[in-house]
């Protein structure tokens, strides 16, 4: 019973066959191995350009952080009450970015959307690295980073525990859980591919992959357990991802501050997270496709699908955004209303309007097929969407501080100092550096899943014929 000849099965199969050809299903499996493994060898010049640029950015960020560490957070021009600045805004941004990996690998996996297969690996890597970046921001943000271990719940000679009521502790736990689970998920799903690497590597690399592949031989027992475990972890990961960003939202929503004390914040944050993550996937899709010559795998139809998904999420976000405004506007809280009005008309109005434009209007570019298939346009659009999403976070954090409950301490014109910008830029460098390193060490395209994809399509096509 190797292939189904049953008419009914074919019928069902056909209904789900996409019109566009996601991938060339006649591609040889050996070719897949060859193409992907090639990406881990000597790269294009562009790789080095990106890598060195990231390294330089990261270096500058490190310099800023050392400067800030030595002199105190005053160098960041933070003040009372503008106490968080870009750090928390960017923290949320990176946390949000991490949600795309889960979306692609877990949600779409459960829903059997197999077009995700060539691109989910790097999305997952993005999840992991953006979480690591977000974690860095927590540390950068702390006034006494050398005492950060006070947040960790462990028995100690002080007999003191963290405050479990604090959303920041929930944050720490949730992010810790998410990071651990993402790394486990990324690694676990990579084991068959690591075996491929092991089988094709030499020397130290072989030892390395040998160790990591945990003796994978592709036996039926391994596959069966692997499938179940992978699916289970994926199922865990979906509520986890939702909970993580909901918890980040509670950082704001549980407080009483105007502009934060909004019930719809958790779904709003989750939608924003998926949105920015998808936009980032488009960006990285285009970059990887070019840098590693993955045109065969990261095909235009897949980009098209990703863009359509992004557009759908953009509309969800837009809706939730409007819900937020509406609930404040029609709510009975004059202070919250005042803060909303300040966002729209005050010193930060330009950013607010830009955020709404970039977040809700620009994604309409994704609605046009001709634009979707234009790679340079998509690169620009995805970057703009990301900028919009970053501005969203900035507009959540800053105006509430600038125009909160207490008029005496309003800071209408506050802007961050170069140190903050430097650290934010450095975080992008750090992320992209890690990502580039990952691409050199691990297969960016899931070989075994692409093989599966190719195989199933091939079989289905033959059956149809």
């Amino acid at each position, binding site marked *: 019973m190797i292939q189904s000849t049953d008419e009914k099965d074919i019928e069902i199969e056909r209904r789900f066959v996409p019109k566009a050809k996601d991938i060339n299903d006649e591609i040889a499996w050996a070719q897949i191995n060859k193409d992907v493994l090639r990406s881990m060898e000597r790269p294009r010049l562009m790789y080095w350009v990106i890598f060195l640029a990231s390294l330089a950015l990261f270096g500058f960020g490190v310099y800023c952080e050392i400067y800030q560490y030595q002199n105190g957070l005053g160098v960041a021009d933070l003040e009372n009450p503008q106490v968080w600045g870009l750090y928390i805004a960017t923290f949320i941004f990176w946390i949000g970015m991490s949600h795309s990996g889960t979306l692609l690998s877990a949600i779409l996996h459960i829903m059997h959307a197999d077009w995700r297969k060539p691109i989910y690996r790097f999305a997952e890597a993005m999840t992991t690295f953006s979480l690591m970046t977000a974690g860095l921001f927590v540390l950068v943000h702390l006034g006494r980073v050398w005492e950060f271990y006070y947040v960790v719940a*462990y*028995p*100690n*000679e*002080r*007999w*003191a525990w963290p405050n479990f009521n604090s959303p920041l502790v929930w944050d720490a736990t949730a992010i810790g859980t998410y990071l651990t689970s993402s790394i486990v998920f990324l690694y676990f799903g990579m084991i068959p591919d690591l075996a491929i690497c092991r089988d094709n590597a030499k020397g130290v690399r072989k030892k390395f992959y040998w160790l990591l592949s945990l003796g994978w031989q592709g036996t039926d027992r391994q596959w069966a357990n692997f499938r179940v475990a992978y699916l289970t972890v994926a199922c865990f990961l979906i509520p986890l991802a939702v909970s993580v960003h909901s918890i980040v939202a509670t950082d704001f929503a549980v407080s009483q501050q105007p502009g934060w004390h909004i019930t719809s914040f958790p779904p709003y944050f989750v939608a924003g997270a998926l949105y920015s993550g998808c936009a980032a996937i488009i960006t990285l899709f285009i970059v990887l496709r070019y840098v590693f010559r993955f045109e065969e795998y990261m095909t235009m139809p897949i980009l098209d699908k990703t863009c359509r998904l992004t557009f759908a999420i953009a509309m969800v976000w837009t809706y939730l955004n409007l819900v937020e405004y509406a609930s404040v506007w029609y709510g009975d809280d004059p202070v919250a209303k005042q803060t909303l009005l300040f966002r729209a008309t005050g010193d930060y109005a330009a950013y607010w309007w830009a955020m709404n434009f970039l977040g809700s209007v620009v994604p309409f570019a994704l609605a046009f097929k001709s634009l979707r298939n234009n790679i340079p346009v998509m690169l620009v659009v995805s970057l703009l969407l990301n900028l919009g999403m970053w501005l969203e976070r900035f507009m959540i954090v800053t105006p509430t501080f600038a125009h909160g409950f207490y008029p005496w301490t309003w800071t209408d014109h506050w802007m961050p100092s170069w140190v903050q910008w430097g650290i934010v830029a450095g975080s992008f460098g750090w992320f992209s550096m890690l990502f580039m390193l990952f691409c050199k060490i691990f297969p960016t395209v899931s070989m075994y899943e692409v093989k599966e994809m190719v195989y199933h399509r091939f079989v289905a096509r033959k059956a149809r014929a």
Partner: protein
Amino acid sequence: MKVHIKNILIWLSLCCFCSAALAEPFVQGGPIGSQTDDGFNALGPVVEQPIEFPHKTHAGNGPGQMNINCMYCHTYARRSNVSGIPRLDKCIGCHKMIESVRDKPRIKKLFEYWEKKKPIPWKKVHDLPDFVRFNHERHIQRFYFREHRPVREVCGYCHGDVGSMNTARRVKALSMGWCVSCHQKEHLENASTTKTSNGPNDCWQCHK
């Protein structure tokens, strides 16, 4: 199937053990005054003092030792936050009467300071961090004056058996967990009652 259930049982018991260890994380200290090992012993460094003061001779209760009450010299302990170092004229008050040891090098040094009217630069042995407010007065009042515990026991709980040392040396960890381990114990309110209470658990009682 069986092997899996066995594995799971091993894991479960391991986790239960861990959780019990975490939920009940700390061993109890001994009762106050006991010199027993309460798990918070930490021998501090030897501190070089300007005069190597023999606590053993003054406060020890062995033969030939004088067994002086701690608070005879450390007079501030019962009325101030700090126990204080004895004032110089206190030392001189006795030692000008004791001719027999007058020529000992340490006593000579003492009189040198006295003649110059210079205070002796004693160094702190039990130096708590600057954000901690430890009140000697309250502890002495509670355990010495109301509960009538022996002075060696009351002082010795934190300072160790000073009567067996020359210059004092820290023997306890003085960590927060140690303080709390004692504060959470039930202590008699005074000598003539069975009513007990524990130390304050208000952070601002000790942190300033």
